[in-house]
């Protein structure tokens, strides 16, 4: 299991990368910054599991909270509206 590098409250940035394969980091959130809401635990790496491999070592998974206004330039709503997304550690910096 890979050790967790972040803790709740830490500010993180989602890597802006567009490789091929099966990826569980949504396109729309790549390159955006948010705050760790919680550590969900460690889970098999979906990018590896999708290719018939073991997915080991397990990767820490986080829920990251983003401010809607920062994600969508034309966002309409309360400035405190948030979007929370599960992101694996290797996609965060």
């Amino acid at each position, binding site marked *: 299991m890979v050790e967790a590098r972040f803790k709740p409250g830490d500010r993180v940035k989602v890597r802006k990368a567009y490789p091929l394969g099966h990826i569980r980091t949504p396109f729309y959130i790549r390159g955006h910054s948010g705050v760790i809401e919680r550590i969900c635990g460690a889970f098999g790496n979906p990018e590896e599991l999708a290719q018939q491999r073991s997915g080991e070592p397990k990767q820490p998974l986080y829920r990251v909270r983003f401010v809607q206004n920062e994600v969508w330039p034309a966002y309409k709503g*309360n400035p405190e509206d948030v979007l929370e997304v*599960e992101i694996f550690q290797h996609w965060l910096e």
Partner: protein
Amino acid sequence: MKDNGSYQPYSYFQLMEVSLRELLVEKGIVTETQVAEEVAAMRMRTPAIGAKVVARAWVDDSYKQKLLENGSRACEELGIEVAALKLVVVENTPSTHNVVVCTLCSCYPRMLLGIPPEWYKSRSYRSRTVSEPRAVLAEFGLRIDENMKIRVHDSTADMRYLVLPMRPAGTDGWNEERLAAVVTRDCMIGVAVPKSS
């Protein structure tokens, strides 16, 4: 296509299902009994299970705390089979409304709500809920006040989400069974809120 009166030929994909299943049975990988049992178990998983959890949380504050801390464990405490489910319960409050979506596929707390409805898996719900939640909720007839904060949960990986709605006014003294009856599936996804009448 054969013309046999009311006879309905298999569609291409139904044909694939029958063929795949028969091949797997012939190879001893699955049995027809296993498939039939799983189909039967699936029919038993309905939003009534989720509603029971919500109603318990409404009447028992210590249970609610446990549910918010560890959703899966709290469900097991009620005798609900959770299997591999990692449940995160998110609570609606007078200042915050929660709504759940899976933009990548259709992740859903199936052990508590059954198979997701068609619209949950639709391109429009999955595309727009993250970027314009207020407009999407309005299409379900739910208007969220501008002063309220919306938390959208994109269920992208291993966790599954259940919204714990607010107990509606006018339900004082109701027992759990009566309370559970007002908790619809949509309330637990976050596209509706429960009403006492």
